[in-house]
């Protein structure tokens, strides 16, 4: 009973890591750039949604849709203004640029909306916890997992079957050849970052009702998203998602059965252990590259 409640709780927490992970990996797979500003971008667009909800008399869904629209636009804007000028530069430069952007967005959000914590409503706010076989399951987190799976399916479909998606894959695999085939690298990356921004925005509006909305909401989640992604394998959206869920569960198990105060450190040691055996994550496929 106790064991299962740890698992359920772990999956619930992990669902947040998983959602953030999707946004990160989408952009990573498409443009080979880890976006360290992803968390703050999501936080920023969620605040926009919250502000719209507070200021104007619109329904929750309208506010959220507008916030997601903002998130997608923000993603494209970041790609055009910061990433595009840096194309072709070493990855480290891009990483530092996104880190700088992280700081900028965090400060900006604090300046515009202040440092207080707010309650972010959701249609499931008043929903009662589900009761399954004596275990209580929080409905919001179930919803998050469902949205996550749906998102992965949608994105996979877009990437595999639509023209824009195929263009994206071509652009990420070999820019030179893609150009020769008439694919606009710029357009492909813009789409990727727009989708990544959107995924991040979705993560934001799902995380906020669970963790409360404030400027620090996504801070640790970004790292957990990366950690979960690394654990699961950064090659596939499914792997990242599973990794995030798994991370939440391990946190709980290690904290309860081994050591409460050492929990976080032990989790990292476990990740390192996994990586020694599987250097590209549990579900990662070792990529072979032509030399």
């Amino acid at each position, binding site marked *: 009973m106790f064991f299962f409640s740890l698992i359920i709780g772990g999956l619930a927490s992990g669902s947040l890591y998983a959602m953030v992970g999707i946004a990160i990996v989408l952009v990573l797979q498409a443009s080979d750039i880890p976006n360290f500003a992803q968390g703050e971008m999501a936080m920023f667009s969620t605040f926009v949604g919250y502000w719209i909800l507070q200021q104007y008399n619109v329904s929750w869904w309208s506010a959220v849709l507008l916030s997601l629209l903002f998130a997608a636009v923000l993603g494209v804007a970041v790609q055009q203004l910061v990433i595009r000028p840096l194309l072709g530069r070493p990855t*480290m430069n891009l990483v530092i640029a996104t*880190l*700088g*952007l992280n*700081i900028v967005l965090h*400060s900006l959000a604090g*300046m515009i909306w202040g440092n207080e914590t707010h309650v972010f409503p959701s249609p499931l706010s008043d929903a009662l916890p589900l009761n399954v076989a004596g275990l209580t399951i929080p409905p919001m987190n179930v919803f998050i997992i469902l949205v996550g799976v749906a998102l992965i399916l949608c994105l996979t479909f877009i990437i595999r079957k639509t023209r824009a998606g195929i263009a994206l894959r071509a652009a990420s695999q070999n820019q030179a050849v893609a150009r020769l085939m008439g694919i606009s690298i710029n357009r492909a990356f813009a789409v990727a970052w727009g989708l990544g921004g959107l995924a991040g925005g979705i993560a934001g509006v799902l995380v906020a009702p669970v963790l409360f909305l404030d400027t620090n909401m996504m801070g640790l989640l970004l790292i957990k998203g990366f950690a979960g992604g690394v654990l699961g394998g950064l090659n596939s959206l499914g792997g990242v998602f599973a990794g995030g869920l798994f991370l939440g569960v391990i946190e709980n198990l290690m904290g309860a059965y081994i050591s409460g105060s050492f929990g976080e450190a032990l989790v*990292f040691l476990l990740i390192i252990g996994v*990586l*020694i055996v599987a250097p590209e994550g549990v579900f990662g496929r070792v990529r072979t590259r032509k030399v």
Partner: protein
Amino acid sequence: MADAKKHTGRAVVVLVGLVVLTAPFWMSGYPVYVLSLVGIFGLVAIGLNFLTGYAGQISLGHAGFFAIGAYTTALLTKKAGLPFVLSLPLAGVFATAVGAVAALPALRLKNLYLAIATLGFGVVVQKLLFEWQSLTGGGAGLEVPAPRLGPIVLSTAGHMYYLILAVVILGTWAALNIARTGSGRAMVMVRESEVAAGCLGISVAKYKVIAFSLSGFYTAIAGGLYCYLVRYINPESFNIHMSITFLSMIVIGGLGTIPGSLLGAVFYVLAPELFRGIKDAPGLVFGLSLVVVMVLMPKGLWGFVGRLWRRA
């Protein structure tokens, strides 16, 4: 015209040299303290540059080495009463050993996987220092006595400044020499192409371990100097943010270059001081400066200086 350029260059250099060598005599305590911090972070940057700039291995856990250096030095001084000429190198050697061991799991990892693994290293070190209360004082922190050598006690800001300056000069000279040797070039080869390096008979694993150990050594010595400068250390400070700061420093300064390391340290310590006056938005301006530097200066500050110099 080349002559004029050379003479101007020499004049600037001499002037600056004078400024740096005499600083404590005419600058007040706080600027001297700031310059001391620049020196310390410069050492960290040089060390990290060996790992990330030369060998191409990313590390998000170097605060761990910094902490190991700080705590080892502090404890050797406090509990064993060692003079700084012993405590600092011993701390460095200990960190080198830790670095060599820590490198082993990292041998097969790349990019983000390596980043997260090194992040884990940093977290584990910080946690260990916090939990091992009987040794480190845990969350209450540790007060560090002033460094001494026999009867000489380095108790003022000026004393520490000169110690740090001496170590920085020594460290930079050593780094330049290492870079020129076979080891330095081997590390660069590892970064450029592990496969090619292997084909050339370069043991990739060996040089990765060397890179980790060397960077650990430099960073730990810097950590030891740090504990002597601030005289109180707390596990709270040696966190992920510090590691990220270290990494950003070398990229901003100029990845893979030793002057770049020093410039990066200058930027990181001085920029917040410059931005302090900006009401309510020092963070914002700092973040913007990171983005701007990356966009405008692909090879970092040192690359930019180089470009300006060539154009002059």
